[in-house]
């Protein structure tokens, strides 16, 4: 498998170098495009483009590598468009509130903004006037390579009331569908030769691990009770998809065979929800999570998973790819302590046989409405996304220090590399580009590609991409419902209540109805009808 991959990569690289296969791709002829489009742009004034991203700034120890990379990059940017880039970090603590606050300040201190329609408030900020409207003329002139490489239907999903608000990261392969990462080696010991294929298998797994390794682990799942696999459970059986970006709780959506009839998952799938609540009561009794799970805020489950101290991690496929690759993270010490360690992934939808592809707008780049240099911002973005030298610097750092390329054309960390002083981070999750990506040799491609192939066979498109919701009339109901959802999910997903599951689910449904869930469903239905049933 690895051999095959490297051959394919080698051929792709050779073809790429000869300019045969990709001669027509916008990235291949980027230099010419820029020369033509930017010839008459006035860049006499040197400007600083402030790029805002979520994440923690590199540690002081890593500042050297980071500064070296930025100095090198800014040299190129200055030469090409007389601009330099500066990164503004929104640290993870309360990131959403601080992110929105920074955009709302409108003081011109931010130019380029990384955003997302499902996990950051791209649409609310666009509608409140935080993002600049990007005309096609502007994009064609100042971000010509990106403009040419993004197909029209992808621009359409970034459009609201006739204006384009952001640039989608639509040429980057990743899967962010959620599920449980678990210890495949332990599952095999438990008699599950093919790993966990069903929720019943997961239950077998947790029982076995609790009995065998319970004393050595911090917990099976050291969660703080804010991850709710309830919809994951239900949609493992029912082919249903939520409309993203309405609220943190994915309450509304539709069945895939009839996506434009909107309903609330927790009202139409009562039986499955009760079944799930019963199962979680059982997990609570097995002792999968700490006794005080709902107040367990100090834990870092993922880090503990890397160290082999817990048995489950609930997140998406992309996170799993780093867990399953021993060398992908220096904290993956479970592989050192236990050479047999292996990590499997049970994804939502496995039993029903489907997954939804990522939204094209899962990562987008926007220009602040208060930016003093929107044109130059777009030019810098175009370079970072499409210029090989800029791309490598911004994504991987200085070659020879932060990364090196092996004989197969894959990326690895050189022997002199130390994660404490040679790492860089730019959190460039809004402009990655498969045409320029250098695959990492540290990844466990055998396992990853096997899962990706499985996904490709069963993947379906997200059905609501073209839908932008006008929440004016029902936002207060959405907030109410979301509050109810977050309250009851904590009870139901962790078995923290004294009533029977049937009673608690009924109480949850009553509370949702009282909070106006039906009003939101009706409003969504009306707007969905207007969008899709013309």
């Amino acid at each position: 498998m690895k051999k095959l991959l490297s051959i394919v990569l080698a051929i792709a690289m050779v073809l790429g170098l000869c300019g045969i296969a990709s001669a027509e791709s916008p990235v291949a002829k980027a230099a010419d495009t820029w020369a033509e489009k930017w010839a008459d742009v006035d860049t006499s004034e040197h400007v600083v483009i402030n790029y805002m991203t979520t994440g923690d700034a590199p540690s002081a120890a890593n500042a050297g590598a980071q500064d070296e990379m930025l100095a090198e990059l800014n040299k190129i940017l200055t030469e090409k468009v007389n601009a330099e880039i500066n990164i503004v970090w929104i640290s993870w603590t309360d990131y959403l509130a601080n992110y929105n606050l920074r955009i709302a300040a409108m003081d011109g201190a931010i130019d380029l903004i990384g955003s997302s329609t499902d996990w950051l408030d791209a649409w609310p900020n666009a509608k409140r006037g935080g993002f600049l409207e990007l005309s096609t003329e502007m994009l064609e002139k100042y971000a010509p390579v990106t403009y040419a490489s993004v197909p029209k239907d992808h621009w359409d999903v970034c459009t609201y009331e006739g204006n384009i608000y952001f640039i989608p990261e639509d040429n980057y392969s990743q899967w962010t569908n959620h599920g449980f990462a678990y210890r495949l080696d332990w599952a095999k010991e438990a008699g599950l030769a093919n790993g966990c294929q069903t929720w019943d298998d997961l239950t077998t797994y947790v029982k076995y691990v609790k009995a065998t390794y319970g004393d050595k682990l911090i917990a099976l799942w050291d969660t703080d009770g804010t991850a709710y696999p309830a919809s994951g459970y239900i949609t493992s059986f029912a082919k249903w998809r939520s409309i993203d970006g309405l609220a943190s709780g994915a309450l509304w959506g539709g069945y895939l065979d009839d996506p434009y009839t909107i309903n609330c998952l927790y009202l139409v799938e009562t039986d499955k929800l009760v079944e799930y609540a019963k199962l979680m009561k059982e997990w609570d009794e097995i002792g999968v999570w700490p006794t005080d799970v709902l107040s367990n805020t100090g834990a870092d489950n993922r880090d503990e998973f890397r160290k082999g101290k817990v048995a489950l991690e609930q997140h998406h496929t992309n996170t799993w790819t780093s867990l399953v690759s021993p060398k992908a993270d220096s904290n993956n010490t479970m592989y050192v302590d236990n050479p047999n360690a292996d990590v499997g992934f049970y994804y939502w939808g496995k039993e029903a046989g489907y997954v939804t592809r990522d939204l094209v707008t899962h990562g987008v780049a926007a220009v602040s409405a208060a930016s003093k240099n929107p044109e130059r911002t777009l030019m810098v973005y175009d370079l970072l996304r499409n210029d090989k030298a800029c791309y490598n610097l911004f994504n991987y750092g200085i070659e020879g220090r932060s990364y090196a390329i092996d004989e197969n054309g894959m990326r690895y960390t050189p022997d002199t590399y130390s994660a404490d002083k040679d790492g860089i981070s730019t959190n460039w999750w809004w402009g990655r580009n498969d045409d320029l990506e250098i695959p990492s040799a540290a990844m466990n491609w055998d396992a990853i590609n096997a899962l990706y192939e499985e996904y490709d066979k069963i993947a379906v498109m997200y059905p609501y991409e073209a839908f932008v919701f006008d929440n004016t009339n029902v936002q207060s109901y959405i907030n109410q419902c979301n509050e109810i959802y977050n309250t009851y999910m904590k009870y139901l997903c962790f078995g923290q209540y004294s009533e029977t599951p049937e009673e608690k689910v009924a109480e949850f449904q009553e509370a949702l109805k009282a909070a106006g869930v039906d009003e939101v469903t009706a409003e969504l239905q009306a707007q969905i009808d207007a969008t899709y049933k013309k």
Partner: protein
Amino acid sequence: MTAINPKKPVPYSVSGSLRKKLWNSKTLILMCVPAIIYFIAFSYAPLPGIYVAFVNYNYRKGIFGSPFVGLKNFDFVAKSGKLWMLTKNTILFNLVFLLLDNALAVIVAILMKEIQSKSFRKVSQTMMFLPYFISQVLVGLLVFSLLNSDTGFLNVILKGLGAEPLRLYKTGEPWPFIITLVHLWQKTGYNSVVYFAAIMGIDAAVIEASMIDGANGWQKIRYIILPSLRPTIVILLLFALGGIVKGDFGLFWNLVGRNPTLYQKVDIIEMFVYRATVSDFNFSTASAVGLYQSLIGFILVLSVNTIVKKIEPDYSLF
């Protein structure tokens, strides 16, 4: 003793025209300038901004350019059906805090005054004062390490003694008491300083005279110290009333957080608003709630002040 005799005529006239009055008080006015500037800049100038509670705020259009939506921003608290419960909880918690805070602070201040050893007094005062400087986040973690079921200090001891562990994070009922206790632990040392200062300001001659007249310790406290503290107590209570509808979010959030078993029992306005709107970044709804709290606080202060004025005019604020 050089106590100022209030009957002694003031050195300047406060009668006459306004201009003359202002001119005569120029030194006092000058001394007030920083405070006046502060209140104009941070309290009066932003007042028109209250309008944001009635608009659908747009970053580029600004507060006064955004479309007017009337009372719509108040909808979400009103529609929740919890407004009364939340307001009641918030007020009751604050009332309890207010009464216990002041009672305890007075007691502690008197006790401090009675301690003869100076070094012991300093040490105990400092120790009581310290919790005030601990961040609420740390307090939350501290309480969790004390009370949690698996590794908590309390339960480790209970288990060691062979008793059933107390599952405090799984039962809501004890939390009003835990929160009150933690609040008192944090604030008493700080609050007592004001009263301690007031006690130190009592004319020593009066206390001395009472001792000569044969008053015992208790009588001294009952007839001299407590009456002298009355104006301070009343004024501090009146000030505190203005914020009685504003909950101590930091304390509640860090102790109770996202655990619904607990917050269902001790929910206050701030907690609900935070949970309901944290995913919907909206200045307008937040301002609407703030305005609601300020209005109730304003009404409360006015009515209580009127009552105080009827009973003891000297103690009222205005």
